[in-house]
């Protein structure tokens, strides 16, 4: 091994050097040091883009004139194309003639080259290839993790703050004081242990299902008989068994709902089941079983033993006799959500599998103009390069769905697949004829073994936690921000690649991805004060700051206030119900509306403010009905704690308690640690005092009622709506402190820190 003396793009250097180029060399041998340029970096900057993409790939692509040569390059932008092309070039470079690699001889036409001379000897491109060949012979590696050095300059949340953020996101709960203490004293190991525990708890699986539904959108079929009606009646004659129960009874309604929704969520429940039981995530594609609850088991006509036959949350593995299960790929819901037609021939299904499970959007290749009006070829999907660029990759896997018809029915095609299409398979492999009956099972194993499958799983978890998908590889060098985008992409890709390896080494346990992400600066970045403008440009995508989704905001309200946005447990949830604010607040219905709105508008700002007003009205008086030790919001004050006496003099003890409670609220609601006397404490205190003074004067002048508005009365239990004992009811507010506290809670709930991820 050796070290490179070449310098690359400024950003690459910055990332590699981290602390500046004048740092003394402490490289310690071949790996690392301040001027280390790895082979992959060199390949990317000097060979891939300027030589392979600009020159070679015109012919050396799967459909190009040189498609039958050894050098067949993946298209720029394809997932993993850099690594693929690096390996391909390395292999081709090993062929030599008279001691010289053919990748130097062919493009310069020093030996026979079908594409004639493309590169001049001693040109910049030639020099790059010379060094690349040398690097293949004597690889250069750099210190692992060097690519993250710029990110390391960013100030990240400390572990207790990270724990709070992660627990709210994963479980919808605040960490306990004990947990925070454990992390503060136990450090990373204690942190990891707690995260591990959180991932074993049930609320995590609700979050997990939401992450995956944001991609699969099978929740479209929740409600009514939307899912059940998609089951082929001839294969599932008991699909509507619940109709035997009168539907105007509670039992009838519940049985129908639990049945339909378990069928609708079969793919998501399978994912949750696999993760919950620490099974390899590859089972998502390869499992020879599905999961059912007591209700869907009956619809599928299965005999399964349940501990509680009325529990809709009890899921077990089950196999439908004669059905070639291939994880969620053979779920009727998956097959209907991504339907096909007689002419589409499963290509849509294939495309979605590539996209969802191999992190590859094949149709991005179709962004180049195509002109079907000029296509005269016989069978263009097989022969016309405009078509084969996608179909060569798409069609074999489409064929693997050969036994599932347009309705998602298992309909074995013993006669085989269309002869005017590529044969069923995956990649270069073809499904053997004796495997046709289980072609999808055959293909699923190939899919799961592909490293892109692991990467796709990492992407999904990363997207769920960080709030955006990983950056796509920038491929347009004319973009003014190309270098900075590429620099961030490199850092992120390096992290995702390492996480993928951890995931694979864990035996494909999806839980292994979560701690990697929440520990990382991509999740914890908070601030960066020492960066220059150029560095800031590179780090533009860094951070998880984004508007909470309706579901996340709802969960956060439960975590900090003990209830979602509704007055009583039996009411509609204002953030989640489609007839309330769900869509106005950017939510999805998994049917027509599939993308979340992540930038707030005036409507959403108003909804957030209304939420803050209503929730302060619902929860502040209610908190004062509780004993102080049980309160969520006001453990340090009573309603009688007034900041001033009747003569306008401060009451120091009361003021201190009020200030202490304000600091407590800042922490509980916003995760903000304020020291006594902090300007933000003072601002909130002034809000409290001025509101109290105003209200007191209004009450004294009969311009305001000494009672709270009826909507804010705390006279009933939230869960049961049972009336509270007289002594516990809170509805009078002659001292106006409750309303002053409501103003404070409104202020904090409407704050950026509450309604945004940080």
């Amino acid at each position, binding site marked *: 091994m050796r070290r490179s003396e070449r310098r690359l793009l400024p950003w690459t250097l910055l990332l590699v050097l981290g602390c500046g180029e004048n740092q003394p060399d402490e490289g310690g041998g071949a790996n690392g040091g301040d001027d280390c340029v790895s082979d992959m970096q060199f390949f990317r900057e000097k060979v891939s883009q300027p030589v392979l993409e600009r020159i070679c790939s015109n012919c050396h692509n799967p459909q190009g004139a040189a498609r039958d040569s050894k050098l067949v390059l993946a298209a720029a932008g394809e997932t993993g194309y850099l690594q693929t092309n690096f390996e391909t070039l390395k292999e081709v470079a090993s062929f030599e003639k008279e001691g010289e690699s053919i990748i130097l001889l062919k493009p310069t036409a020093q030996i026979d080259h079908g594409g004639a001379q493309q590169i001049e000897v001693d040109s910049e491109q030639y020099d790059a290839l010379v060094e690349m060949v040398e690097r293949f012979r004597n690889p250069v590696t750099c210190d692992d993790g060097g690519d993250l050095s710029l990110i390391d300059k960013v100030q990240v949340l400390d572990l207790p703050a990270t724990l709070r953020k992660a627990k709210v996101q994963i479980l919808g709960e605040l960490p306990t004081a004990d947990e925070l203490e454990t992390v503060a004293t136990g450090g990373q190991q204690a942190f990891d242990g707690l995260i591990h525990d959180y991932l074993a708890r049930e609320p995590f699986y609700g979050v997990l299902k939401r992450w995956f539904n944001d991609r699969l959108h099978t929740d479209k079929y929740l409600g009514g008989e939307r899912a059940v009606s998609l089951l082929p009646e001839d294969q599932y004659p008991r699909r509507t068994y619940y109709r035997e129960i009168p539907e105007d009874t509670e039992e009838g309604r519940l049985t129908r709902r639990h049945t339909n929704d378990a069928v609708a969520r079969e793919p998501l429940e399978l994912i949750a089941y696999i993760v919950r039981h620490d099974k390899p995530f590859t089972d998502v594609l390869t499992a020879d079983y599905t999961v059912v609850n007591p209700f869907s088991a009956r619809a599928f006509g299965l005999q399964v033993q349940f501990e509680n036959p009325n529990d809709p949350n009890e899921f077990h593995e089950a196999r439908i006799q004669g059905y070639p299960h291939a994880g969620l790929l053979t779920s009727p819901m998956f097959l209907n959500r991504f339907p096909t037609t007689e002419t589409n021939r499963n290509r849509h299904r294939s495309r979605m599998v590539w996209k969802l499970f191999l992190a590859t959007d094949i149709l991005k290749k*179709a962004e180049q103009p*195509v002109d079907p009006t000029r296509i005269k070829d016989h069978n263009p999907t097989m022969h016309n390069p405009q078509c084969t660029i996608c179909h060569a990759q798409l069609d074999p896997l489409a064929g693997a769905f050969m036994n599932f018809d347009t309705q998602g029915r298992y309909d074995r095609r013993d006669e085989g697949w269309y002869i005017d299409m590529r044969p069923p398979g995956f990649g270069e492999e073809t499904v053997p004829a004796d495997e046709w009956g289980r072609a999808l099972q055959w293909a699923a194993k190939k899919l799961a073994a592909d490293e892109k499958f692991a990467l796709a799983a990492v992407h999904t978890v990363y997207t769920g936690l960080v709030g955006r998908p990983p950056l796509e590889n920038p491929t347009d060098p004319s973009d003014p921000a190309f270098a900075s985008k590429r620099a961030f992409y490199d850092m992120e890709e390096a992290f995702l690649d390492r996480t993928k390896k951890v995931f694979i080494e864990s035996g494909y346990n999806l839980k292994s991805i979560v701690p990697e992400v929440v520990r990382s600066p991509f999740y914890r970045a908070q601030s960066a*004060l020492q960066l220059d403008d150029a560095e800031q440009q590179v780090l533009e995508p860094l951070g998880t700051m984004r508007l909470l989704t309706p579901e996340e905001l709802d969960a956060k309200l439960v975590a900090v206030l003990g209830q979602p946005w509704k007055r009583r447990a039996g009411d509609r949830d204002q953030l989640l119900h489609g007839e309330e604010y769900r869509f106005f607040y950017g939510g999805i219905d998994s049917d027509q509306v599939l993308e979340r709105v992540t*930038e707030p508008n005036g409507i959403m700002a108003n909804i957030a403010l209304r939420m803050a007003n209503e929730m302060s009205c619902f929860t502040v008086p209610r908190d004062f009905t509780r004993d102080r030790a049980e309160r969520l919001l006001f453990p340090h004050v009573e309603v009688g704690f007034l900041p001033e006496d009747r003569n306008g003099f401060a009451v120091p003890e009361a003021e201190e308690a009020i200030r202490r409670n304000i600091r407590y609220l800042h922490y509980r609601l916003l995760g903000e640690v304020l020291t006594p006397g902090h300007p933000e404490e003072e601002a909130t205190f002034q809000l409290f005092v001025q509101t109290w003074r105003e209200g007191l004067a209004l009450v004294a002048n009969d311009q305001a009622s000494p009672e709270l508005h009826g909507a804010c009365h705390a006279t009933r239990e939230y869960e049961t709506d049972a009336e509270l004992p007289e002594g516990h009811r809170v509805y009078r507010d002659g001292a106006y402190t409750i309303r002053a506290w409501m103003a404070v809670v409104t202020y904090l709930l409407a704050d950026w820190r509450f309604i945004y991820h940080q």
Partner: protein
Amino acid sequence: MDRRDFLRLAGAAGLAVVTAPLGARAQEADGPFWIFVHASGGWDPTSLCDPKGRRDEMQENPLNMYFTDDIGEAGNIRYAPVAWNHEFFQKHYRRTLVLNGVDTQTNNHDAGMRHTWSGRLSEGYPALAALIAGVHSPRSPMSFITNGGYDLTNGLVAPTRTGNIGVIHRIAHPNAIDGNPEGSKFHTPATMSRIQDALTERQSWLERTFALPKAKHAIGQLYGARTGRNDVQRLSEFLPSQFEGAPLKRQAQVALAAFRAGIGRCANLTIGGFDTHGDHDNQHFPRLAELMQGVDYIWDEAERQQIADKLVVVVGSDFGRTPGYNEGDGKDHWSITSVLVMGAGVPGNRVIGTTDEHHVPIEVDPATLREKPGAGIRIRPQHIHRALRRLAGIADADLVLRRYPLDDSEDLPLFG
């Protein structure tokens, strides 16, 4: 000095304090307003405004099942004798410009939708609706209303999505307990104002605490959204008392009320169901009828809202459908499509672009727009967008030129 005092003094001293521009609303109320109607899935122009038909029942592999003799005419516009075309074109031909033979250069849904509505086949450009809203009314609370379709904004403007309009009063009046501005409040007006002042004053502290580019952007987003918050109240003044059942009409009601209220500029309306790979005529025609009835309703409602003279409506789809039926009586994807443009500044009763009997575009002379087979050009979405940008008055905006230039396509005189 507390923070509020500082802000007051800052304001008095003329220091920059973020507020909504005072003149913005009046200007926005003047229009023009834009509605983009997306027929999702790829519509069939030969069943709409580029009719082909068949000579008789003996014709093999016809493009359409209706007869050429039945093709309708309204002024200079020919239309297929199916769905609700007759009613629509007879009523609206004078304000309708038909662009036929538009080459989307793709038969991929995502790419087609993107090309039709952003003017660029590749990824990265915002929807034209977002671009117009971003240039003319970036801070208006409902500047860009989207009901789906292609609605990439690139951060130029915050998109607004609508839901159950029954809750709009509660949204418009967040401090009114039951949504009635005259009714009881959660907080006194003075207290509400105090809360909002306190929120505003926290901005700089938040930006110092979260000193990352993304955090600053996110904080700015929320504070920007809040500046136009109170204008939402105006929407409730102009919403109709009854809402239509058909989704497209309902989407139009909200968009037009927002325009009338002076808080909206552009809207994406969508209607799906056009991807009819099987049983095309029976599946496609009802969707076409609903689409054209929806567009008709847009104009009726715009008249009622007194903004019809300031409205531009563009109707388009992902691409077209194959010239002929497949084995399942369906039609597959075809890159050639049509676009309808109607309203303010658009010369109606006109058809630009033609296609041959196989629905292949005939090239046009870029100067005269007359047919010029073999020596002219194909009309592409870029051409249409170049003209629409000019019509919208954004073609020369610095933001548009710098960040979203169209390729070197010709400047076609589509609107005269």
